[in-house]
């Protein structure tokens, strides 16, 4: 029997595309999100399209105390777990409203890190499995335009790196995904450069491939590796005066 793929934060465009990509490969799917009853149509979609079994699980990434219980309640421990949990927020609000900033920090770092940590222990005990964390290029260097989000993603990236290091000898693999710009409705009104902007389906395909090939860190569009290398290489004395 094929073990399922768990999608955490299953409501986002990237999560939906990722669920489809794994289901297309014949994997049963566990969809986890807040108010998960709203994902009945997505469950029906995956079942109708791909004939796989799909289960729904209520999951609140910020309720870290409940994460152990959430994993215990899953009908089976998944083979692969993907965290698509995240919250962009508004940088301007994050600067003036500490509560909003804390929510962004917790949604992008604390919540995803804790749940993947819990799953890591179970996977390590079983000595198999793959954990996928969707982080962001924004975590590669803090910039004025979104450093609260970026800092939380940087924390998550570092966490994934450490987790990968810890689990490498225990048969468990960790993939860090840095999507770059993604074409979602939220960005539809922005004039994103086409060469740097991926479709959710592209992100999903890259994730499936990264899992199959046990990649460590992927930039969905390879050009982002270069872009971020350049951004990281700019000396701080100059960088602080730029507006990238």
């Amino acid at each position, binding site marked *: 029997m094929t073990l399922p793929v768990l999608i955490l934060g299953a409501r986002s465009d990237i999560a939906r595309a990722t669920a489809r990509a794994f289901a297309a490969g014949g994997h049963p799917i566990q969809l986890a999100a807040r108010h998960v009853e709203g994902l009945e*149509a997505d469950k029906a979609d995956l079942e*109708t399209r791909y004939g796989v079994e799909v289960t729904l699980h209520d999951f609140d990434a910020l309720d870290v105390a409940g994460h152990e219980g959430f994993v215990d309640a899953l009908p089976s421990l998944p083979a692969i777990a993907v965290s698509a949990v995240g919250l962009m927020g508004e940088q301007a609000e994050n600067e003036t409203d500490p509560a909003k900033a804390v929510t962004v920090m917790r949604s992008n770092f604390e919540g995803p890190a804790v749940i993947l940590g819990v799953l890591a222990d179970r996977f390590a005990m079983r000595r198999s499995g793959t954990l996928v964390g969707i982080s962001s290029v924004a975590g590669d260097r803090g910039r004025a335009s979104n450093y609260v989000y970026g800092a939380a993603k940087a924390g998550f990236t570092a966490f994934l790196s450490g987790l990968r290091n810890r689990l490498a000898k225990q048969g468990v693999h960790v993939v860090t995904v840095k999507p770059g710009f993604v074409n979602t409705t939220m960005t539809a009104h922005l004039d994103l450069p086409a060469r740097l902007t991926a479709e959710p389906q592209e992100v999903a395909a890259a994730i499936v491939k990264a899992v199959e090939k046990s990649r460590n860190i992927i930039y969905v569009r390879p050009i982002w590796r270069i872009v971020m290398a350049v951004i990281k290489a700019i000396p701080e004395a100059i960088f602080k005066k730029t507006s990238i």
Partner: protein
Amino acid sequence: MQLSGWGNFPKAEARVRAPRKEAELADHVAEGSAIARGNGRSYGDSAISPRNTIDMRHFDRMLSFNPATGQLVAEAGVMLADVIDCFLPRGWFPMVTPGTKLITLGGAIAADVHGKNHHLDGSFRACVDWIDVMGPRGEVTRCSRDENADLFEWTLGGMGLTGVILRCAVRLRAVKSGWIRQEMIPADNLAAAMDAFEANMGATYSVAWIDCAAKGDHLGRSLVMLGEHADPGEVPPRYRATPFKAPRHRNIPFPINAPGFALNPLTVRAFNAAYYRNGARQKGTRIVDWDGYFYPLDAIGNWNRLYGRRGFMQFQCVIPQDTAREGMQRLLSAISASGQASFLSVLKRFGPQDSAFSFPMAGYTLALDFPRSKAAIALMPELDAITLDHGGRFYLAKDSRMPAEILAGSDPRAEAFATWRRDRGLSASFASLQSERLNL
């Protein structure tokens, strides 16, 4: 954002939103002048409302499939390509498909599209069991032949002007393989092409590519292509073990808008002549895969760029059976005399059609495309007049430029449709540039 149809004309600045939830969609609809947009494959301005265009592509879930009846229930943003991807491997294919698979189910219903099997099976309507339509206040009404039948009838071919198509139940066709047995019949002129259609009314699929540049005795010379779903035993040996798995066609994107002169009467004439000669050599029967047979142009991403920045116009009319021979002869003579050759021209025999506002009728349809040149624009009124003279009408999914009088003169149903919309209080709620241009 700037929006246009597949013909790249007209272009209009439009407010576009892509809701994910029914509640969001209802909020947008409540603002009025709303038009739902699918994958943007209608050619003109059917899916553009400057104030309120609603991109439906997030509503792309398949909800159930019943293998006993072949009925698929799905949201309106599901594409025909997805349906084929998921169901051809299980032995099912769309019952009716136009020449592109890159359209949504909602769009297929709104335009009530037709395919190469219209003469036998009718338009897309034939496979639609029911439709869920969202009205002005966000209320969702299920309609079918038995339930809210007037809404059902006007929604098929209603160009999105009866409300937002949200979900539908469509029946698929059971097939034995992903391959088509194609028979190519070269026809030296229009009469021969029409004779070939009439002699093959029993063929599942029939369509003709027509050389609009040919003159004189060769006026209307065509390659008539018939098709049948092939049995597993006919599938080429290397694919026989998996008869539903056809070779994948490489998608070759057309990268840029071609310069304006790329398609001129000379190059088009040369292309058409070469295409005919090449096709005539393939006379007879061969086995081709579904993608190449139904969707040759889908293999070239953004082929519409071939016409350059100015875009192109489609012209598609249907002329009723009893005047079709004369009408088609006159249309082709006018085109040929104008020197404005159409790059891709298609002739097809339609079968009977009984519906409120759908395009097809028993007779012959001719589909043409022209670059938006002055000479081609000047030719349009002449083609309109010939169509009207012969009792024909026009396909709204292709239209980007027809005057309201021409539609009214060709199709009394347009007035009835507009009246029905007014009576139901839909006129202010749902509108497109096309509905405003045509007083629908």
